[in-house]
């Protein structure tokens, strides 16, 4: 049958209609994809672009969207900041405070703060795995009296807002003499990470067949051996998800760190960054470079492990 028979005058040209519909769909998808990309990436691109600008360029009106002469001076300032560079009143006023150009004395805190963040996050991850894995195994594979109660208990601890914990935490930590230590952060971050980790793991363990457990037990494994030898090797994806979430949550946490840290002994990256933003003498390009530095590690992690993150998010949040 040729096209002609279908396009009778007055009749409906179905094929043409279908082609139009498909074209419209493609256009809508294309437009949506472009809008979404711009929405997500434009703010970040602007931040990155301004971190490569010189002080003179960053204050241009209207802004230069792309730097005329990209420079690494801001990043160099962060990585080469040392104790010797004392900022005195003279050296500071030597530059025009209105237009900035001022690298703060706290610049040297950035790298130690990154190290603190890394250390805290790593410890929190390890503790999460140590307490989370056995708990999740028990909740997923052992039929015991009190299981539902335990699940609800962990769920309830998950919805306690962090700000409600700040006041009691502060007094306890102060009385323990743990203010301004990394330990205080590790301890309190457990409250915000453990329940979520347990649910990611429970979800995954439940997907593994019960027969595995039974087979291992028949072969003479104890519960503990069944967990370590049979389940752990199989649950690698969920372990990766737990590591990622816990690490990123600790790396990004601000409120508790703001309360408990005071000096570079324990200050984490978000704290040092926040201090920059409230200092009006610091040059914008420097603050932006510091911001880029804080963004890069978690974004790289997210992009590399996208698959694990998406499955973890859906497991931990949706199917709980």
């Amino acid at each position, binding site marked *: 049958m040729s096209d002609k028979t279908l396009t009778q005058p007055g009749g409906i040209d179905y094929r043409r209609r279908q082609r139009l519909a498909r074209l419209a769909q493609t256009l809508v998808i294309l437009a949506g994809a472009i809008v979404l990309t711009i929405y997500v990436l434009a*703010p970040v691109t602007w931040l990155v672009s301004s971190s490569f600008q010189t002080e003179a360029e960053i204050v241009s009106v209207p802004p230069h969207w792309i730097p005329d002469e990209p420079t690494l001076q801001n990043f160099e300032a962060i990585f080469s900041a040392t104790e010797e560079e004392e900022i005195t009143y003279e050296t500071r006023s030597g530059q025009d405070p209105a237009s900035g150009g001022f690298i703060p004395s706290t610049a040297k805190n950035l790298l130690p703060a990154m190290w603190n963040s890394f250390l805290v996050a790593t410890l929190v991850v390890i503790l999460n795995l140590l307490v989370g894995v056995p*708990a999740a195994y028990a909740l997923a594979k052992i039929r015991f009296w009190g299981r539902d109660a335990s699940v609800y208990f962990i769920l309830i601890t998950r919805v306690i807002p962090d700000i409600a914990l700040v006041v009691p935490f502060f007094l306890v930590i102060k009385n323990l003499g743990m203010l301004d230590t990394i330990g205080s952060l590790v301890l309190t971050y457990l409250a915000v990470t453990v329940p979520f980790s347990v649910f990611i793991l429970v979800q995954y363990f439940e997907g593994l067949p019960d027969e595995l457990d039974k087979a291992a037990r028949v072969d003479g494994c104890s519960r503990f051996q069944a967990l370590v030898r049979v389940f752990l090797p199989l649950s690698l994806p969920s372990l990766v998800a737990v590591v990622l979430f816990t690490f990123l949550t600790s790396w990004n946490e601000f*409120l508790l760190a703001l309360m408990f840290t005071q000096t570079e002994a324990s200050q984490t990256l978000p704290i040092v960054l926040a201090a920059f933003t409230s200092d009006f003498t610091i040059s914008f390009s420097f603050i932006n470079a510091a911001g880029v530095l804080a*963004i890069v590690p978690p974004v790289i992690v997210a992009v590399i492990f996208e698959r694990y993150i998406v499955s973890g998010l859906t497991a931990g949040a*949706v199917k709980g």
Partner: protein
Amino acid sequence: MRRLFGYEERSAALFLAPVMAVLMGVAVFPILYSLYLSFFRIKLTRPNRTPFVWFDNYTDLFTNDLFWVSVARTVTFSVVSVSAIAVIALLVALLLNQDFRGRRILSTILLVPWAIPYVANALMWKWIYDSGYGALNGILYQMDFIDKYMIWLGDQEKTIFLIANAFVWKEVPLATILLLVSLKSIPSDLYQAARVDGASVWQRFVHVTLPAMKPGFMLVMIYETMMAIRHFDLFFILTEGGPGDASHVLSWHIYVETFRNLSFGSGAAMSYVLALVTFALSYTFIRTLGRKV
């Protein structure tokens, strides 16, 4: 008794002991301690006198105008942010549910705001909104929407919406991922059947897609409301509650009361109110999730 304390119970108790100990220590004890503290008048400036005042901290709270202002600001912020998140996330989820080339790249890009630390997000938006050299002024000026640079965050009317925008940008990815799950769980024969019955694209959306997404939507709404009413970081960095009390939300109020006025008793009382509100809200959340575990 054998059923209560059989082998299963004993091994489960052993496996659960560490997590229970940790959660007792870092969650249950603090929240109970907080309740206890809220019955005392504790000023760190006056450490040796901490009288027991029954419910005074609570009654003071409810007669404090600034508290009610902060409640109103929190409600505005949460309603605006959560509805924006729901709408944008729905559109993005519908887009990413289509099959097209570049879909995977797009969903990876979408994770960027999710991964960025809140402080860095705040820093970024502070710079975008900057009154002197910011991108928002720059772009609006170049497009002739404004004829002079504006002090965006200094505008009492706009501040809370601008902060909400920064919050929405960061939260949309998570909401989208949650919505995508319920979109993906719709069996395709439902669409086939609707198509056979002659339903248009719009009708299929309204009668098949939307009802199937209801649980996912509920989850997103409750979760994001919980996140919004407790949110602190953006307010701390962008406005410090200002200008005036335009962004003086509850979490900021708690922070000021506790760590600037150093009255821990009333700070504890306030955090308790916030915790109870969150609990009430999350009751549905817990029920939804608890059923599925």
